[in-house]
């Protein structure tokens, strides 16, 4: 028992103490009233009139979990795709353009928009994979650098050719009402969360119970072994990235059809959905069933921090800081993280 206490319990307690201490210091810097801040946090994350803030948390969790699933698919295959942001933006852009300009019944517009978004996001991710496989650009850097062209392409398209000039902002016109995702009756929560719930289930099945999912994991944990066993490594890489990017694209489409009903410059970049998704996956060491929980956890930190800002005047960036701190403390404990290809050493396909 004694040894157990020293080796397992004590580190845990000390990590919590550290995290809590940092939180206190930050609040002290902001000159905040501790009780107010905590109640503001809880209310912002889980409360509100008719639980309005809890629904906001769920809505944000939808997008974060979606991005986390996207990232998880590639991470588990040993592909450090940190370009989720670009794939998300490209997907959202495709969805918005279809949504605004395609004629036809609402459901068809939405369905087409979602498919277009998934295709666009998937191809954007595959582009990074092609650069790694056929040119030798490390995926980590290639996927990240593709964020910037995506961001500026979106910014240009909604700032110039497809701009809703009358709105005064760099954004597209509104998607017509009929093509919006319906709301749960009596709430402001849209049904996008159902897509992500379904996607979470599919992701668990894919990772745990299918041959392609198993092969992808094998490539992630032991790339040399995967290659030596004659697995089609190139296909695994491209397939995983296609799926990963497609999910990111779906998230973009859900943000457009469910939440914003148009594409506004920066709306998918500023809230750091993609980066939050990445750390949500890292927090739980890429275990598929745990990803939705950790995504919800981070969403709650963010909306809770916004609540703290409202009631106790603590800048909401405290949420971002605490997320980073948590990841720093668990970084040493994340197991099963085999990040092949991280520094370009794993050159699949040479």
């Amino acid at each position, binding site marked *: 028992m004694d040894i157990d206490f020293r080796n397992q319990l004590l580190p845990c307690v000390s990590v919590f103490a550290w995290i809590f201490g940092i939180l206190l210091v*930050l609040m002290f*810097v*902001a*000159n905040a009233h501790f009780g107010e801040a905590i109640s503001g946090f809880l209310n912002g994350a889980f409360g509100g009139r008719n639980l309005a803030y809890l629904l906001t948390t769920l809505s944000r969790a939808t997008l974060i979990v979606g991005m986390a699933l996207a990232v998880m698919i590639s991470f588990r295959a040993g592909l*450090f795709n*940190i370009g989720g942001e670009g794939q998300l933006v490209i997907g959202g852009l495709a969805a918005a353009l279809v949504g605004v300009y395609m004629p036809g019944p609402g459901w068809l517009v939405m369905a087409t928009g979602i498919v277009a978004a998934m295709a666009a996001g998937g191809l954007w991710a595959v582009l990074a994979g092609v*650069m790694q496989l056929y*040119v*030798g*650009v*490390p995926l*980590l*850097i*290639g996927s*990240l*650098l*593709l964020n*910037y*062209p995506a961001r*500026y*392409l979106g*910014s*240009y398209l909604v*700032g*110039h050719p497809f701009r809703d000039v009358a709105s005064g902002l760099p954004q597209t016109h509104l998607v017509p009402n009929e093509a919006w995702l319906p709301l749960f009756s009596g709430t402001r929560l849209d049904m996008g969360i159902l897509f992500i719930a379904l996607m979470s289930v599919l992701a668990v099945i894919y990772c745990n119970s299918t041959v392609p999912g198993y092969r992808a994991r094998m490539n992630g944990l032991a790339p040399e072994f995967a290659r030596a066993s004659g697995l089609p490594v190139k296909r695994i890489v491209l397939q995983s990235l296609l799926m990963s990017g497609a999910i990111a694209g779906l998230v973009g489409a859900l943000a457009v059809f469910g939440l914003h009903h148009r594409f506004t410059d920066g709306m998918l970049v500023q809230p*750091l959905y993609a*980066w939050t998704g*990445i*750390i949500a996956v*890292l927090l739980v060491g890429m275990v598929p069933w745990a990803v939705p929980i950790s995504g919800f956890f981070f969403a709650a930190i963010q909306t809770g921090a916004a609540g703290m800002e409202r009631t106790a005047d603590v*800048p909401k*960036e*405290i*949420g*971002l*800081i605490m*997320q*980073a*701190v948590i*990841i*720093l*403390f668990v*970084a*040493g404990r*994340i197991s099963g*993280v085999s*990040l092949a290809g*991280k*520094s*370009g050493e794993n050159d699949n396909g*040479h």
Partner: protein
Amino acid sequence: MGIDLVLDPAFLQSVPRFLTPILLAALGGAICERAGVFNIALEGFILVGAFCAVLGSYFMGSEWWGAVAAMAGGVGMGLLFAEFSLRRKGDAIVVSIALNLFAAGLTVYLLRTIFGVSGAFRDSGIKGFSGIDIPLLRDIPVLGPLLNGQSILFYFAVFAALALQLFFARHRLGLRLRAAGENPAGLSAGGVDPQRVQLWALVLCGALCGLAGAQLSIANVNLFVENMSAGRGWIAVVAVLLTRGRPLYVLFIAVLFGFVDSLSFRIQGFGLPQQFTDVMPYLATLIALIVLSAWHKSKTA
């Protein structure tokens, strides 16, 4: 346009302003690379440096204190990296991603709590570095406008590139640092703890990235803007990757990127949408990466 544009003194003058932050950060990254630390948190290091530079300059009333504070901030980030990656054995990529987010959050948080503003902080109390006029250099055509009248940080950055080249090649500590990266077991057999060397690499890297941030916030302008590093840290990471941490090549790449950066800034006046010019540095980085990777691949294949 054409050659006139490139030889225009205003354009030449702007090249070093753009290349200095990338060069300083990439040299920091190069030190880590050679010591075997995979540091892709340069973006966060620079951001903290830029913020601390404004902090030091504003409260101490001198740009020199700004530079000292920037280095201190960068070193602080380096120590955090060391704590979580070396001592607590966190994966370097995970730690890097967390530190980048940490820097983004912390700088905005402190911007709002200390200065009570969000978005940007500008104030006449922020003292910045001004250009140094070098009499003889001033009169040389092309080189004069290019190299004269820059902030001290630019001259320091070029000096640091040359010094580092010698340091890696000749100096006992430089060799030790490389051994930490290339043959850590051999190094510890020789009685030197590789982790200690890596810790010092991170400290040096932090100081250099801090100065890179100072160039952004108290030399190029006198203000701090949220997310001011704006991807330069990633460009520096690419520069390290392409050169495998060789300082003279880093210098060359930084000049190249600085050139593209200021070119994009320059052609904003020609009626192109801003997004086209803004994306140019990233596209240039991507293209350089693709071309050099393909070349490297064809050579080794």
